[in-house]
């Protein structure tokens, strides 16, 4: 315990906690709109698209998150274009972006001929090596995403509830659809350093899945999802430190535990209501 308190005094741990908090709040806040629109796997597609960006940036010697941002946003636009083109093949659009990203990433990595531990850190996350620049990028993008979400909250909710009705009531449905995936792309980039390319989508959807077990309104869905996100990040980070585990994986596993607890809580609750009725 003493060593933990000591660790919290260290700069790297403080940066990890702050970056983790941003990710814990922003990922589920965007994820709610993906899950409710049955686009849960979009985060996965975007994560893999950003892998190509990280590898490309690595090759060119530029800041990896910049490369990731470019490819994630391109992937987002690609997914939405393909999706609106043939609505019934929405999952196919995802698969195409998903595999293009990872294939390009693999090829670019092989070109660089120096698959380093650092690149490995992007794949699986390495929250404890978050630099001050990383933290700044994560905080600024996180704040920007939250600001946009607050601004168009009503519109995005109407869109999530029913796209046709939203269109009839005059909302710019096409533009809002692009906005959702681009926000997801930016969020994925912000979360890359924390949980890694392979796990980033988990933070977008698992806290939301947990929230959906308990929430009795859209407002509650949002609040609970963010709460589950924050608790997962802090709980995961703490456990990973105490048990010497990989932080990215531990954070996502903590989110899964939260989901299981919420699902059990829901079952217990409905069982109690049934017995009370009898």
């Amino acid at each position, binding site marked *: 315990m003493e060593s933990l308190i000591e660790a919290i005094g260290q700069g790297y741990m403080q940066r990890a906690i702050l970056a983790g908090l941003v990710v814990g709040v922003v990922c589920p806040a965007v994820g709610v709109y993906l899950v409710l629109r049955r686009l849960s796997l979009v985060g996965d597609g975007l994560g893999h698209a950003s892998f190509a960006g990280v590898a490309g940036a690595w090759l060119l010697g530029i800041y990896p998150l910049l490369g990731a941002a470019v490819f994630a946003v391109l992937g987002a636009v690609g997914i939405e274009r393909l999706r609106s083109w043939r609505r019934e093949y929405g999952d196919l659009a995802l698969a195409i972006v998903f595999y293009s990203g990872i294939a390009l990433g693999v090829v670019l990595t092989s070109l660089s001929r120096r698959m380093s531990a650092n690149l490995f850190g992007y794949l699986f996350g390495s929250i404890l090596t978050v630099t001050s620049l990383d933290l700044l990028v994560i905080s600024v993008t996180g704040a920007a995403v939250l600001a946009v979400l607050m601004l168009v909250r009503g519109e995005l*909710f109407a869109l999530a509830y029913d796209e046709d009705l939203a*269109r009839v*009531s005059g909302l710019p449905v096409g533009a809002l659809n692009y906005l959702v995936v681009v926000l997801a792309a930016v969020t994925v980039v912000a979360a890359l350093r924390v949980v890694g390319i392979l796990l980033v989508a988990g933070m977008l959807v698992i806290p939301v899945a947990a929230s959906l077990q308990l929430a*009795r*309104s859209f407002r509650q869905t949002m609040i609970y999802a963010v709460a589950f996100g924050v608790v997962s990040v802090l709980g995961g980070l703490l456990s990973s430190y105490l048990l010497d585990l990989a932080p990215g994986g531990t954070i996502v596993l903590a989110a899964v535990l939260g989901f299981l607890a919420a699902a059990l809580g829901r079952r217990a609750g409905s069982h109690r209501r049934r017995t009370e009725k009898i």
Partner: protein
Amino acid sequence: MSDHLVLEIDRVSYSYGGEPVVEDVSLSVNRGEFVGLIGPNGSGKSTLMQLAVGLLRPTSGEVRLFGMPIDRVRDRHRIGYVPQATASRTGFPATVAEVVSTSRAGRRGLFHRSNQADRRAVEHALQSVGMSAFRHRLIGELSGGQHQRVMVARALAGEPELLLLDEPAAGVDAVAKLELLELLRKLVEERGLAVVYVSHDFETLRRYFSKVVLLNRELVFFGTREELGDQHDIQRQLVEAALAADHHDHGGR
């Protein structure tokens, strides 16, 4: 007179996969009119509604709202639309009040937060369909009839000038259906709302509708209920329409 004109459907046709679903239909709806759109299954009623609200584009012809081609209508919140009852999204985590509030988003305009007027409109709409007591209930926990009333409240909360309801009484008991018709009649008479009410049940039509559209892919009749003649005639025309539909239709929309 033209400022009373709310909806004009001008020689509109629509085909899906080469099959004509709606053919050369023309009609107009004025302020304060309660129009019944009647036709057998597969006669293109829902398609015509979707054309009227801009969810589908006509293959030929033009839809005008408030005197403007539909593509140029910017204040779409003047249209209220209640789609045909589909399987409600049972797992959707929203309360009745939250769902009803979604029709206010288009009215507010982008980047405007909801305000007192929005909340009042939502409350008022819920009251008018008798669903106030359910405002905090999850939308997925309602019965079919209750859900449909919420969808009507949703459309009303946008304070539309034209309200299109696609078989709103499907799956609703007889009392609730009459209540809905009475509510709509009141809105037509007091607020000058224009209503288009789709149904394949024409029994109620004589008492409520000021104008009647009989549709069977093509327009069979459009005029006042007096012009339509007695119910016997309507039945005959509808039966003929249905028979013709069976003959022509290959499971069209």
